[in-house]
């Protein structure tokens, strides 16, 4: 696999990244702005979902309708979201429309109209989304889990809560935008079919601003929240659990990834085999690595009917702990081939590449090539994974359940 990463840094510090892909006709792009939930003022952590909607309600010369029409006319499929560290807005589209789209995104980022009546609508929608979360316990349990697991404010629920959203004012939201739409700390990435020198030239015109302020990373405070239960009279108990592990930049990162893959990579992995195949406890069960720049964990979800909830949790935690007792060569080989194959399959999609290079750059300060990742996965072994597991024992689980019955956490 031969690949290259394009990179250019604007005078104001904004980073431009690109990964060209030969056989596609699409391009996917994202802007990562330092407006993640953990960087917002206390009491405003739902502001991100309000702002991400509000900024598209009219920008530059275009009103709300004209802006939406202009984006639709380019056949562009928008994406966006709020993570712990960033607000990301972007799209995937036919490559020939990239240039025109970036002009429009310039307006959205730099001269959104931010009208007060439109703010109220964005705020109402954000409140309704939080209310709707109660009807989606599977999503809610994982949001709550991150909040309880990560040191405060890293795991903040980016949707916020209703009281905070109701208290959010138009002035406060505008102030947050002014502060956090800081292009000197923004990352732009594009993947697919594009001309990088053209992208750079355009970005110099559109995004070369004078910025002096800087967004500081928050001080994270660990909290002791072993178990949280949210009563809900649904059909299942939704279980989320998370345990600490090494950061994405750690030398043991790939050992951690292979270990998680042995636990939950494919259908022959341990959780699926022990929890679902042998015992029929669940339909959905799975674990994955979840890493921020400052902290990382392995997060696991399972949904099961109330009478099976305790056994499900017990079997899952036992499997986490049993991993350090021994792993077969076969299991390691399956885990490695699974990770490498996923990597290649994702590399065919401009969307996944655009996301991949941006988060790499933010977390590691550079973009890893697919070859490098493959080599690092290849270099792991039974011994290296076991040594990692013994050094970084899976313990001290943070557990959250939503459902009609509580569980006992050992």
């Amino acid at each position: 696999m031969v690949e290259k990463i394009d990179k250019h840094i604007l005078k104001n510090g904004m980073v431009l990244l690109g990964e060209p892909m030969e056989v596609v006709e699409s391009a996917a792009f994202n802007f990562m702005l330092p407006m993640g939930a953990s960087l917002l003022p206390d009491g405003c952590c739902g502001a991100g979902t309000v702002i991400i909607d509000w900024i598209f309600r009219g920008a530059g010369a275009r009103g709300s309708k004209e802006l939406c029409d202009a984006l639709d006319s380019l056949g562009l499929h928008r994406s966006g979201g709020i993570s712990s560290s960033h607000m990301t807005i972007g799209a995937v589209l036919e490559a020939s429309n990239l240039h025109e789209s970036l002009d429009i995104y310039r307006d959205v980022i730099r001269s959104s109209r931010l009208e007060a009546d439109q703010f109220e609508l964005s705020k109402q929608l954000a409140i309704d989304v939080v209310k709707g979360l109660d009807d989606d316990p599977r999503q809610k349990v994982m949001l709550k889990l991150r909040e309880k697991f990560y040191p405060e404010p890293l795991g903040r629920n980016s949707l916020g809560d209703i009281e905070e959203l109701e208290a959010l004012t138009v002035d406060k939201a505008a102030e947050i935008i002014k502060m956090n739409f800081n292009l000197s700390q923004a990352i732009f990435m594009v993947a697919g079919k594009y001309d990088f020198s053209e992208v750079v030239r355009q970005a110099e015109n559109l995004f070369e601003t004078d910025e002096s302020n800087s967004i500081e990373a928050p001080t994270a405070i660990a909290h002791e929240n072993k178990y949280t239960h949210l009563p809900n009279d649904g059909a299942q108990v939704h279980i989320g659990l998370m345990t600490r592990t090494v950061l994405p930049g750690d030398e043991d990162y790939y050992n951690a990834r292979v270990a998680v893959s042995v636990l939950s990579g494919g259908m022959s992995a341990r959780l699926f085999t022990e929890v679902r195949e042998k015992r029929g406890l669940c339909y959905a069960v799975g674990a994955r690595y979840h890493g921020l720049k400052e902290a990382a964990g392995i997060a696991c979800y399972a949904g099961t009917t109330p009478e099976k909830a305790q056994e499900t949790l017990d079997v899952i935690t036992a499997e986490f702990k049993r991993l350090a007792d021994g792993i077969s060569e076969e299991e390691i080989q399956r885990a490695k081939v699974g990770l490498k194959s996923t990597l290649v399959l994702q590399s065919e999609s401009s969307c996944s590449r655009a996301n991949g290079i941006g988060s790499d750059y933010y977390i590691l300060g550079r973009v890893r090539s697919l070859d490098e990742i493959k080599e690092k996965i290849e270099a792991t072994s039974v011994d290296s994974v076991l040594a990692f597991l013994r050094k970084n024992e899976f313990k001290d689980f943070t557990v959250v359940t939503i459902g009609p019955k509580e569980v006992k956490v050992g």
Partner: protein
Amino acid sequence: MEFKKKELSNGLTIVGEVNKSAKSAAVGFFVKTGARDESNEINGVSHFMEHMLFKGTKKLSALEVNEAFDRTGAQFNAFTSEENTVFYAATLPEYLIEVTNLWIDLMRPELRDEDFNIEKNVIKEEIAMYKDLPNFDVMDKCRHLYFDGDSCGNSILGSEESIDNMTAEQMRNYFSNRYAPNNMVLACVGDFDWERLCSQAQSPCGKWENQQVSRELNQSAGSGKCERVENQNLNREHICLMSQGVSAQDPRRFAAVLLSAIIGDDVGSRYFWELVDKALAETAVMQFGAMDGTGVFYSYVQCSNENSAKVLDIIRGIFQSVGKDGISGDELKKAKNKILSALVIKNEVPMGRLIDLGFNWTYLKQYRTIADDVNAIRAVTIDDIHSLIEEFNLCNFTQLSLGPAASKE
């Protein structure tokens, strides 16, 4: 891209689209069977059957099946709908033959009693899981209400009762009737060797016995009923509307897709401007679902209980206005751009392409290039959309809502 096709003497069709510039390949079996092909007594058997296929063959245990897939690093899974059961895998080219051979083996499963009994628990957990997902639950219930006794309205998962009462023997009978080679398509896309694929499939698949397989096709106009199911545990109103559309075989399906995008795409549509932009509903989307011999326009809306009456009035207003005044050229142009770019992006990845290739053969016995579909979408005119609206009045919908007791909001 090169299209390939071969039909075995027992009726199994193998179709392929070779694309040597792809980095991966995708392979799948498309079995023309689903919930609509079930009697009430065995409701849920198609989906249960899909699970049981992974439980192994005479020679392979369930764990060995999973290990064999995972050794290749393939991303593999299956899904069951009202009328199709699809088994698929995306893989690196060097593992394609191994993965295909595995699927071929699994298409003749052992269906052991012991596995059947354990898997019943997993199916019942899946039924419980969907009860906690009202956005799925409302669609399932609404489909049942719309088809009103027709088997197209059968629940895909079945009920706890139908699953409890089902026997392994009933499943074996269902299997031998429906998993016949003349009712299946083997499809493959991406970087692979066509001749090798066929020579691998020829001998084992050639032994499968064909059957008389049929499906009753009724074009249903829907019951037009309106029901609300109260659930104390819910916070929001979940509303599903369904009305008649064209079938998967009907050339007007492209116009139907465009019409649903004009009315209910997640951004820039009529629903978007009237409901979401005004913060009356947090979700409001319409999709067109083409089926074998029939078709349905689905709307899904999530809003507060107190807004629900207003939201429904607005939707009726949109349907009436579309019926009376039609759509604008600008709306059609935007919908085309969105649908066309989605089509191109989806088909860039072999796994995305596999689904279109397999379903085009299942429904149409036809190979359609991406360009064929692009041209068909480009060719749709305003008049095409208007005559569709005239024939299929959107106002004649069946409605099902799930929501809290009225006092909760």
